[in-house]
């Protein structure tokens, strides 16, 4: 029940049979989300991929996110795990705090929050700007580039590597491991298992190194040394490193990619941003709302009825933050990108106790990546709109996205 072949086949009615890996849904999920949202069944159910519920209205998604005792985070991946990876040396390593439930969630989150406070992430602004400029230096003379693989994909991995104090030269390997877990691996359990193993083996070595050679002002060293305050174990630290890599790369890369894809087709928005730099804060939120990259899952703790849906203990719910963010009950003209949107309580970063801990860093990266691009490449367009490829499932965004300038 975990491979593409087993779950393929045409979808007749998305309210009873949606397929999150259907190629059309991966490319452009919004029409289907809206069809479900406006149907008699705004919380759809499908038996594909092990079975899951799909709430599409803002109010329902937020309500489920807030009810964390019934809708738990004991599995947050959008498809069930295969047997692979449950055994082995890293069997107990999770991804705290995203995979933690209370009461442990509190300290699991508490320990990483200082890293991502607004003042703490501000120090990465110049570094991010430098990375962006270096990337553009490599292709600006060509008059064409892949805004996905040459740019968007390259930025967050470098920022996260800097934040974790691990070698920047390994950027391509980190990227392929993360795609192995979050993208390719969702429909290919073997790839997922092997990628996870590579990530954890790598960080295990880093942990050993920090124990022998503690570093100043270093996240891994600090986490290892916080045992006086909380019951910190190696497994916890490994889990946090694992999460930072997995949660911090594909997500932000997708947000940058979708935003550039949007701007490539909207000269009026490029002009607006150039003319009015004060727009950046609302523009960043609006692009996050309209092209929310992340869908998470919850596991139902006990039989419960939610909005008339009979949910059983163990059922999977897909937290369709992208669908919630286009609900016309919450957002006027939800399918329009309005760069100065006044009312924008979007849930691209989730809602409730698991709200994205890295959101300040993600916002900074998205803003700087777009600012530097527009400074240096004010005018650009898609080479072949139909040739853009997309990833979907857990994280939605363009992958290959050729532009000319």
């Amino acid at each position, binding site marked *: 029940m975990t491979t593409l072949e087993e779950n393929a086949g045409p979808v007749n009615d998305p309210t009873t049979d949606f397929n999150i890996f259907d190629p059309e849904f991966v490319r452009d999920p919004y029409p289907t989300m809206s069809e479900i949202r406006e149907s008699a069944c705004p919380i759809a159910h499908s038996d594909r991929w092990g079975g899951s519920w799909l709430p599409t209205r803002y109010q329902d998604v937020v309500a489920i996110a807030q009810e964390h005792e019934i809708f738990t985070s004991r599995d947050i991946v959008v498809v069930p795990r295969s047997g692979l990876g449950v055994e082995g040396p890293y069997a107990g390593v999770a991804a705290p705090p995203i995979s933690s439930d209370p009461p442990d969630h509190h300290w699991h989150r*508490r320990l990483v*929050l*200082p890293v*991502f*406070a*607004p*003042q*703490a992430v501000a120090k990465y602004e110049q570094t991010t700007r430098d990375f962006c400029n270096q990337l553009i230096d490599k292709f600006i003379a060509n008059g064409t580039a892949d805004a996905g693989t040459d740019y968007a994909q390259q930025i967050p991995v470098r920022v996260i590597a800097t934040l974790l104090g691990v070698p920047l030269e390994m950027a391509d390997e980190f990227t392929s491991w993360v795609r192995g877990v979050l993208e390719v691996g969702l429909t290919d359990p073997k790839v997922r298992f092997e990628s996870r193993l590579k990530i954890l083996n790598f960080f295990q070595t880093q942990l050993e190194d920090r124990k022998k050679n503690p570093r100043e002002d270093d996240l891994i060293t600090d986490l290892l040394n916080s045992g006086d305050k909380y019951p910190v174990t190696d497994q916890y630290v490994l889990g946090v490193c694992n999460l930072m890599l997995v949660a911090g790369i594909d997500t932000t890369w997708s947000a940058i990619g979708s935003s550039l894809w949007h701007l490539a087709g909207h000269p009026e928005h490029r002009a607006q941003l150039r003319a009015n730099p004060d727009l950046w*804060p609302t523009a960043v*939120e609006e692009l996050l709302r309209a092209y929310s990259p992340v869908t998470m899952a919850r596991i139902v703790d006990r039989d419960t009825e939610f909005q008339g849906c009979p949910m059983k203990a163990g059922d999977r719910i897909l937290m369709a933050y992208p669908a919630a963010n286009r609900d016309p009950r919450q957002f006027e003209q939800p399918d329009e990108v309005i760069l100065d949107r*006044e*009312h*924008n*309580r*979007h*849930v691209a*970063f989730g*809602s409730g106790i698991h*709200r994205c*801990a890295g*959101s*300040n860093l993600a*916002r900074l990266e998205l803003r700087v990546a777009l600012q530097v691009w527009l400074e240096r490449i004010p005018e650009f367009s898609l080479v072949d709109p139909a040739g853009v490829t997309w990833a979907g499932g857990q994280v939605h965004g363009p992958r290959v996205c050729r532009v000319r300038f």
Partner: protein
Amino acid sequence: MCSIAAPEVFGSDELGHATVLIVGDLPAELHAKARRAQANCPEDAIIIEE
């Protein structure tokens, strides 16, 4: 978010949790910014008393 929309009104502590920087009534020139922060607060946690 609120500290981006209305930096004069909101700050954040070392955990990144929002703090209110102004004690007492808000100067009139900051009302619009505070309202924008309220309209964008992801947790609907800001209450403005008129």
